């Protein structure tokens, strides 16, 4: 990443533009697509929005895994709607990325080639129905904690997409909580299923906020640009403070022996996630990394002839219209 203050401001005209841009950021104004912006700002946004969009569409898989087995028709309808929302959120975000001058097909290619990331959480498997609940409650809960501040992000199209997404996401978290709540009050088998699932998803959900601030590479610059508003550790704390009382309401425990209220800090203390595991999953060695990408690539490749046909039909129709005119 280059420092926008040096190379790009060399030109006198660029210097004026840079000042204008800095002024808008300082005034907490929104940057819009046709505004001049430093290359590094543009690249950072493309990387972050793309990763976010990829996460939405890869995230369809672990939950989609349970649609055909959903245990009641009501749950099935809710789950279809939820997975559909994720496709929609992916589309909102790709559309925001496209305002920065990069095509969705390019971004998808980068995803398929493994050159852009998606949230590592989706590399964990959904092995029981309760996982659909845990994903809604913990994973979507962590995502919302991350995303609400993004509604005020300095880049207009991204901020607007996030407003839409956050509105829709709150339903996701509630339905997840509701699944676990029902299981926790159900048969012994259901209760065990719920607890076992929360035990598996708790730590990965804490990792969703990224490495500790002391080791986070992109944080500082993103904060300066008003892309990021709070640090990884601040958001992680906020999340833990939110889920502890919710776990009590569920009647389920969180698998963290260090969890305790600190009157002094006014926050819950909690343990340290296994960052080695985090790095391993990030590197591609998680339980489902290969499977998720393979699934995505297959859908894309198998759809190639369909997209081609739609294009060919549109071209033929235009030609026919011209001939008739």
């Amino acid at each position, binding site marked *: 990443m280059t420092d926008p203050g040096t190379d790009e401001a060399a030109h006198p005209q660029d210097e004026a533009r840079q000042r204008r841009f800095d002024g808008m950021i300082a005034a907490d104004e929104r940057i819009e697509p046709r505004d001049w912006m430093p290359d590094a700002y543009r690249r950072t946004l493309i990387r972050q929005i793309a990763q976010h969009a990829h996460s939405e569409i890869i995230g369809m898989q672990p939950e989609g895994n349970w649609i055909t087995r959903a245990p009641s028709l009501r749950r099935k309808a809710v789950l279809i709607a939820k997975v559909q929302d994720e496709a929609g959120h992916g589309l909102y975000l790709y559309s925001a990325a496209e305002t920065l001058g990069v095509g969705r097909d390019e971004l998808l290619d980068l995803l398929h080639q493994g050159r852009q990331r998606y949230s590592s959480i989706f590399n964990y498997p959904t092995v029981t129905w309760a996982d659909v609940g845990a994903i809604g409650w913990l994973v979507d809960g962590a995502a919302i904690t991350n995303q609400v501040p993004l509604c005020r992000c300095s880049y207009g199209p991204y901020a607007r997409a996030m407003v839409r997404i956050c509105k829709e996401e709150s339903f996701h978290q509630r339905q997840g909580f509701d699944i676990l709540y029902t299981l926790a009050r159900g048969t012994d088998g259901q209760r065990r299923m719920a607890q076992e699932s929360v035990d598996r998803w708790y730590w990965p959900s804490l990792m969703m906020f990224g490495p500790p601030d002391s080791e986070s590479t992109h944080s500082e610059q993103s904060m300066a640009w008003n892309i990021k508003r709070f640090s990884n550790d601040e958001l992680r704390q906020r999340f833990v403070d939110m889920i502890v009382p919710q776990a009590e309401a569920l009647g389920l425990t969180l698998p963290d022996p260090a969890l305790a209220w600190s009157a002094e800090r006014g926050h819950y203390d909690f343990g340290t996630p296994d960052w080695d595991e985090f790095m391993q999953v990030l590197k591609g060695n998680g339980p489902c990394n290969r499977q998720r990408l393979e699934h995505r690539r297959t859908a894309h490749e198998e759809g190639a002839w369909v997209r081609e046909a739609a294009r060919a039909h*549109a071209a033929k129709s235009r030609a026919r219209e011209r001939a008739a005119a």
Partner: protein
Amino acid sequence: MADQPLWEVFVRARRGLSHVHVGSLHAADAEHALRNARDLYTRRQEGVSVWVVPAAAISASAPEDKDAFFDPAEDKVYRHPTFYPVPEGVEHL
């Protein structure tokens, strides 16, 4: 999709309001774009009417032109209702 053009989508939330830009999508032709827009941007009954416009057909003012484009309106204060003092006691004007 590089080959499926980009369409900008505008939704009228309810009668009496104008169409508002909500985002974009890809489709091979206008008819397909309209259907996709309906599916994507009105999943929660957000609209009563949808427009799709080829993104390539939109001409936009450059932000750098802002001064030339928008400042002339700055001195036309008579366009704004607050320009007119309202005598005390007159309401609903």
